[in-house]
């Protein structure tokens, strides 16, 4: 059974969080925080697919929290909600917090569930993209090591069998991630 995706809700008003927990707990694993600092702590301890934060909070605004989360936890999709907004906070949040959506209170609960489901999909795509990029970098790096050793010629070092095996495994992972078999290079 697929685990429920994790979402983090941030609002300094506990009863808003309580309502949201009641609404969302069937579809999601719900974490809550009453401040930006607490939210960052939770994100450091748990993988979070979606961060949904109120804008107007003491100490750290939602826009600032989104900005920090954007840099520290880039695969987490960020949503800001607020009762009202001045245009500056909207611009800040979009430009520096990489927002997925800006939601105004009151939201329609059914539409909110749909929005969060979409946001989870965005997060999963982003995480898959990051994994692909990391694996690609690893593969290229190993390929460079192998080609370096091949260039050394018959008097050079032997190619490490573990490296060759890791290279082949990395190629398989890339095939899985891209859903494409690795095609032989021209001339092979």
């Amino acid at each position: 059974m697929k685990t429920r995706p994790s979402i983090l809700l941030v609002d300094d008003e506990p009863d808003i969080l309580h309502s949201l927990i009641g609404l969302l707990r069937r579809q999601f694993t719900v974490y809550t925080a009453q401040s930006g600092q607490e939210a960052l702590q939770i994100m450091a301890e748990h993988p979070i697919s979606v961060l949904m934060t109120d804008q107007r909070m003491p100490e750290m605004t939602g826009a600032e929290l989104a900005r920090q989360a954007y840099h520290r936890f880039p695969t987490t999709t960020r949503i800001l909600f607020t009762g009202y907004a001045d245009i500056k906070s909207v611009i800040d949040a979009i430009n520096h917090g990489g927002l997925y959506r800006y939601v105004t209170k009151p939201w329609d609960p059914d539409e909110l569930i749909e929005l969060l489901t979409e946001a989870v999909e965005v997060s999963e795509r982003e995480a898959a993209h990051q994994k692909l990029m990391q694996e690609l970098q690893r593969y290229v790096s190993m390929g460079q090591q192998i080609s370096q050793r091949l260039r050394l010629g018959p008097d050079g070092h032997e190619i490490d069998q573990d490296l060759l095996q890791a290279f082949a495994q990395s190629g398989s992972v890339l095939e899985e991630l891209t859903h494409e078999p690795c095609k032989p290079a021209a001339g092979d």
Partner: protein
Amino acid sequence: MRNKQPVLLTVLIECESFRWYVAGIDQQGNTTPLLCSEPQDLAPYIGEPFDEQANFLRHRLSGVLQRGCDRLWGKMMKPCQVVFVTDMPFQQAEDGLTQRVADHFFEWMTSPPVVFYTIRESSPVCNPHLDSIAGELLADWNEALKQGFPKMLSKCSQTDPWELVVSKPHPG
């Protein structure tokens, strides 16, 4: 879950006591009391500069709407329009504050749309006359509001039907 009963999410603001009540009014004029605040809940705007007063009221009343929507959802209801009613202009503030707040909600909130009324002074308590200061009531809902709002008012004197919401202290 999509087949929810449409209602007017109606917020009554008692400006002298700085208190609010939220109820749903269906198309037959039946009233479902939802939430109310303590007296003085809206009072933190007193003494603030005009823009801060408007900001505070926009923020707090948005939270009121959010809570109201949540409670309606649990009752298989959904707001088709938000109706604000103040029984007089906001007190201890400049004259324009009520209009500023009304204009904000009318312009900012489009789904569901907002209509903002004040109760006409000297109109009968049992059948108050509402004057719109921003927005228009949806077609076909006039009679529902006319029937349902006096029922809402009459329930405000009772404590049982309302869930009391205690707001977090305003940081000032």
